[in-house]
């Protein structure tokens, strides 16, 4: 046993030496958290700054102009062009000169005054469905507000106070800051890349170079070899995670409402799963290139089905079941719950437990697979 520890120690020394001598690798590992966080978090938002609106106003009355002014005043809409022709407007959409069309028919004001009801046309370029949806939502809110005001001006005697006053509050994220939502996910992605991709490539590299064969002839036990391979990346991934959390908190102001210790424990357990998958992948391929491709393929599926970018609850039932088996999903859930909502152990014990079990299973299967193919 003592001999075993010594062997692991000797191997660990070699691993760390190799990793830190690899300048390309080191640069990547230091830069990766920063680059990813900076770029991804700035890019990853669906917020619409300003929509380009093409105006087809056939009414030209105070009511119609009022509506347009209101839209403009909100800061979210910019009138890029106007004409009486819907065809030209359609062309503008095709040419991407405008993202949406507001069509106010002739007789708008008259209808409002006489029948209390009028219609307008909103045409969106829905190439980007999400974007169109959000813009639509904004537009409708403003239109509703305007119709309210119109009602008030038409019957100044009766105060058209809303019957029901609705106060809205967004919990945990009052400003609806998308980066608070994304950044925990980005950190998870980081961990997964280091844990799975680098592990797979690292082990396969020894296979490719032939140094693995040399080790196989020595009395190094399989367990010692695997431990020496996984431990360095485990520690490095955790270090990156810590760095990422610091950046997230200081630079992006992501709240850390819950226990960071809990988050770290979850990260430690999650990494075991990621490493196990990396180990397993390394047994199925012969070259680093293959390792990279397969890792990416697997990681991509895991990440996209995990609720990182799109909510799990929007997925069809079968996908939601699949997600239950997805360790990434549970980890992201825990991260968001603890960091954003201040959840504690009694709120997250279930996914944490699932992670722990997955870790044990993944590692066992991978080690067994490794044993089979090494001989």
């Amino acid at each position, binding site marked *: 046993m003592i001999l075993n520890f010594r062997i692991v120690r000797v191997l660990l020394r070699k691993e760390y030496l190799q990793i830190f001598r690899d300048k390309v690798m080191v640069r990547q590992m230091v830069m990766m958290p920063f680059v990813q966080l900076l770029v991804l978090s700035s890019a990853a*938002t*669906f917020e619409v700054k300003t929509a380009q609106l093409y105006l087809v106003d056939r009414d030209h009355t105070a009511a119609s102009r009022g509506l347009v002014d209101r839209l403009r005043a909100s800061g979210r809409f910019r009138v890029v062009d106007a004409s009486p022709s819907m065809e030209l407007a359609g062309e503008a959409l095709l040419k991407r000169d405008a993202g949406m069309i507001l069509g106010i028919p002739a007789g708008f004001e008259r209808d409002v005054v006489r029948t209390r009801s009028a*219609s307008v046309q909103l045409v969106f370029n829905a190439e980007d469905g999400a974007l169109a949806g959000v813009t639509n939502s904004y537009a409708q809110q403003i239109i509703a507000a305007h119709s309210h005001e119109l009602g008030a001006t038409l019957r100044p005697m009766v105060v058209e106070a809303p019957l029901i006053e609705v106060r809205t509050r967004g919990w945990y994220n009052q400003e609806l800051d998308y980066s608070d939502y994304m950044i925990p996910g980005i950190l998870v992605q980081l961990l997964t890349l280091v844990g799975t991709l680098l592990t797979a490539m690292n082990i396969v590299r020894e296979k490719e170079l032939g140094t693995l064969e040399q080790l196989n002839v020595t009395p190094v036990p399989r367990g010692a070899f695997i431990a020496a391979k996984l431990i360095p990346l485990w520690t490095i991934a955790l270090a990156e995670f810590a760095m990422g959390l610091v950046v997230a908190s200081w630079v992006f102001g992501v709240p850390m409402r819950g226990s960071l210790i809990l988050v770290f424990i979850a990260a430690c357990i999650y990494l075991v799963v990621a490493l196990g998958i990396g180990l397993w992948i390394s047994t199925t391929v012969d070259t680093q290139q293959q390792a990279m491709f397969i890792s990416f393929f697997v990681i991509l*599926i895991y990440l996209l089905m995990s609720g990182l970018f799109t909510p799990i609850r929007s997925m069809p039932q079968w996908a939601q079941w699949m997600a239950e088996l997805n360790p990434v999903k549970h980890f992201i859930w825990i991260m968001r719950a603890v960091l954003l*909502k201040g959840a504690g152990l009694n709120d997250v014990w279930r996914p944490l437990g699932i992670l722990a079990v997955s870790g044990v299973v993944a590692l066992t299967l991978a080690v067994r697979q490794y044993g089979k193919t090494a001989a």
Partner: protein
Amino acid sequence: MTATLRAFMIKEFRHILRDRQTLTILLLMPLVQVVLFGFALRSDVRDVRLVVVDPSPDHATLALRARFAAAGRFRIVAVTPSMQTVEIFFRRGEGDVAIAFDPAFAARLESAGPARLLLAVDASDPNTATTIQAYARTVITSYEAEIGAREGQPVRIVPEIRMRFNPTLESVNLFVPGLIALVLTLVSALMTAISLSREKERGTLEILLVSPLRPWQIIVGKVMPYLGLAFANVLTALLAAWLVFQVPFRGSLALLLAESLLYSTVSLSLGVLVASRTASQRVAMLVALLATMLPSALLSGMVFPVASMPPVLQWFSTIVPARWFIIIARGIMLKGVGLEYLWRETMVLGAMTMVLMTAAVRSFKPRVA
């Protein structure tokens, strides 16, 4: 010389065909992605779990609650007198939104003073939160309209909404063009970079350079098989998208393939450039990844709209070839437009090709020699 070139290309083909694992991934990936993500990646919100906080239930609160229950989208998961339950439900992820009625709701309603309620949404996912808020408000507003109908109608402006090119707002229509771009980048840029740098490392490239083949011919010969692979991928992805999701294809297939060819050429040049500038295969792999795949996935507008990005990134996105290709692909597939509308973007890609190709060929020979 053409015979040499042909022999060279055949060798490249064999390389690819023999690496079963990579080949499988390359062919399978777009297929799996289209199907999987088409089914799974949605942004629409269903089954919203509602927690009702009703300290003093009366006929109005009950009526509004019934409206929510009947709304289809909402599912009442708890009715409680205290806000604390909401906290617990939100924290455990068991509730999405809560409605808290202020006391004496019906009374205030009837006395024309506003009746108050609080709409609290779990905003940790801001997108979903916004949508859920909108849904909830709709229910409340229609209830309001109903009971207010006697009072003298408020003015209603009714917008007719049309979502052009993508009436159902299907996410899959959105990302299939992006997926094609990604796959093309993967095969054209990444694979080329790896394959070239591998030959460089092994020394077999020098043999080629000594042969009568000129550098550009070497590049072409190396690159052809990957181009073929890329096309196979594009067609597979399109087929899958059309068969499984009825993703529309309103424009000219020939134009799309031609533009794909152009885009592939840009990516290929980038891949060659990376290979000629890096020292080893491993480095080439990582650099190619960073310089081609990541920007193509994140900054091209494939998933996140370019218009939403901060100005710095928007500027940066203009030099990401994938950004232009996605505009073109979406234009062709969803809008059915032709070159008349897409000439600007095509010119950009053309210019990029020329610049990158020249740089690639020029840096090729002196680098290895």
